[in-house]
């Protein structure tokens, strides 16, 4: 099975790790090719299926460990917390949802940022956390991203942001929408100081996230098979009243349509990022990341 096949096989592949009925949690099954994998091997392979190259969704912490120099990540100490300022309540109040999400993920919100070393080069890093309310962008996520960009403007170090988000956080109404403009505006300032920004699109990146900072990288990379688009597939299907073609809105589709620079297997991501940062950033003349 080729790298490109897996998303054609299943329309909506289940994410995460499915545990098998074998005691000890040592074995897992790939959601794409159904291969049974030894968990240690899978982790050693950056949670990319060894059989079909399916990219499992991972936490920001896992991502940090796969990409950046060991122990080099220092998290930004933004103690920002979301507020339910609209008293928003659907099937559940926003306040409750926030509490639950925090409990479940252990994070305060859907964005982790800080500084890390990439093959010896200091960079600014932001990572969205899809497991926290679908990585949705409310005021806190928008503010954290903006502060990260401002940090890059100040320290002149390259900026990498890994996206995975369903879009704006509806529970914050119009102010969540405005985070799109806020983050994009900050990137316009980053432009003017000539600091490189690389965005890495991970599964899924849609809605307001996709239509703002995600698509504004000087270089845009995507993990294989990631869903990337403005409108979600379900909305489009409802609008056009037909099934979407296979592979629609996947990374490879975006590459073909000229929207991204490259689709990069997670296992090669570190090297590609290192090289890109080195070529865009005059300060980085180290050759540690050379292939």
């Amino acid at each position, binding site marked *: 099975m080729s790298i490109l096949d897996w998303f054609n096989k299943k329309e909506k592949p289940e994410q995460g790790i499915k545990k098998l009925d074998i005691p000890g949690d040592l074995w897992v099954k790939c959601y794409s090719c159904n291969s049974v994998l030894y968990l240690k091997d899978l982790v050693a392979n950056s949670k990319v299926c060894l059989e079909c190259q399916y990219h499992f969704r991972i936490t920001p912490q896992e991502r940090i460990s796969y990409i950046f120099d060991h122990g080099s990540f220092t998290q930004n100490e933004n103690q920002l917390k979301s507020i339910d300022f609209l008293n928003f309540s659907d099937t559940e109040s926003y306040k409750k949802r926030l509490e639950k999400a925090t409990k479940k993920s252990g994070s305060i919100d859907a964005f982790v940022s800080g500084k890390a070393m990439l093959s010896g080069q200091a960079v600014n890093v932001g990572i969205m956390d899809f497991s926290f309310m679908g990585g949705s962008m409310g005021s806190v996520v928008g503010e954290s991203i903006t502060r990260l960009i401002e940090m890059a403007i100040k320290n002149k170090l390259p900026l990498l942001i890994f996206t995975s988000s369903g879009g704006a956080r*509806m529970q914050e109404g119009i102010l969540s*929408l*405005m985070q799109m403009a806020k983050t994009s*505006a900050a990137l316009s300032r980053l432009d003017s100081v000539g600091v490189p920004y690389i965005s890495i699109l991970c599964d899924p990146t849609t809605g307001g996230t996709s239509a703002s900072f995600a*698509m504004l990288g000087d270089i845009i990379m995507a993990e294989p098979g990631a869903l990337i688009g*403005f409108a979600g597939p379900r909305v489009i299907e409802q609008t056009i009243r037909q099934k979407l073609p296979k592979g629609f809105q996947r990374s490879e589709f975006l590459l073909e349509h000229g*929207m991204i620079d490259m689709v990069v297997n997670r296992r090669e991501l570190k090297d590609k990022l290192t090289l890109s940062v080195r070529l865009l950033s005059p300060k980085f003349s180290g050759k540690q990341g050379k292939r």
Partner: protein
Amino acid sequence: MIIKPLEFEKPIHDLYIKIDELKRLSQEGQVDLAQEIKKIETRAKTLKKEIFAHLTPQQILQIARHPNRPDSFSLANLICDDFIELHGDRHFRDDPSMIGGMGQIASHRVVIIGHQKGHDTKENIYRNFGMPHPEGYRKALRLMKLAEKFGLPIVTFIDTPGAYPGLGAEERGQSEAIARNLKEMTGIHVPIFSVVVGEGGSGGALGIGVANRIYMLEHSVYSVISPEGCASILFRDTDKADIAAEQLKLTAKDILELGVIDGIVKEPLGGGHHDWHCQAENIKKVILKDLASYKRKDTKEITEERYEKFRSFGKFMDESKTIKKGD
């Protein structure tokens, strides 16, 4: 022109029908019903005031989406002495759901850009119900750059259910087009004034809305998602759109309170769909005032102001001690 009344407009509409009837009788039967007519007219006006003072978000939404609501192109023509439409994104297509052109408002030369809906099915199909494809946003950006080059202030009219969610739109980079506009608009050297004239739907609205001054018409809405979409996703029940409309806080009054807009533009009593000229006049007054006051501002002031405006949006608790808000 008599327009099919909305549900809550019916009591008013009924009175006006009665007035018309009495007027006809007056003329035919040579009966003098002037006093009677005047009484009902007063009643109608009072009723109108009362009803329009207590509109629900759902009702406001209906007005904002009214098929007879003044469209961007008509407003541009009503506001300008001369308006000349310009076309095309220079890449793929001229998107009829986004109009743009140059015009003169009193002594001010401006570029006007706006989402364009139709007033009937045929027009709406041509205008794609005001839902732009990427080329619409790219045309808008092209015209903004033209405005910047020649020092013309930019006025944008926001009126869209959202950017179009379709195959071609995704293929040609709806996300890229909107994102690009958000970023580029930040740096445009001329002042930008935006007016939500009808429906301000999500990223598709914001895509031409990164402005120095933002206004909403009295009965317009601005929302991160349509109440229907919100109901379907969060409430898992499309019938709950009414509740979603309340929760989302999408009316001009709400948005003003949230600090996102700079003011509310009055509509003629009964709503802009009953009097386009009056509506255009009200918008013109606001825009003219801004045009005059921004004439004195320099490029740096203009771009800084716009940046700071959007930089400030967001409500959250900041418990950090060491890190302060960046500039």
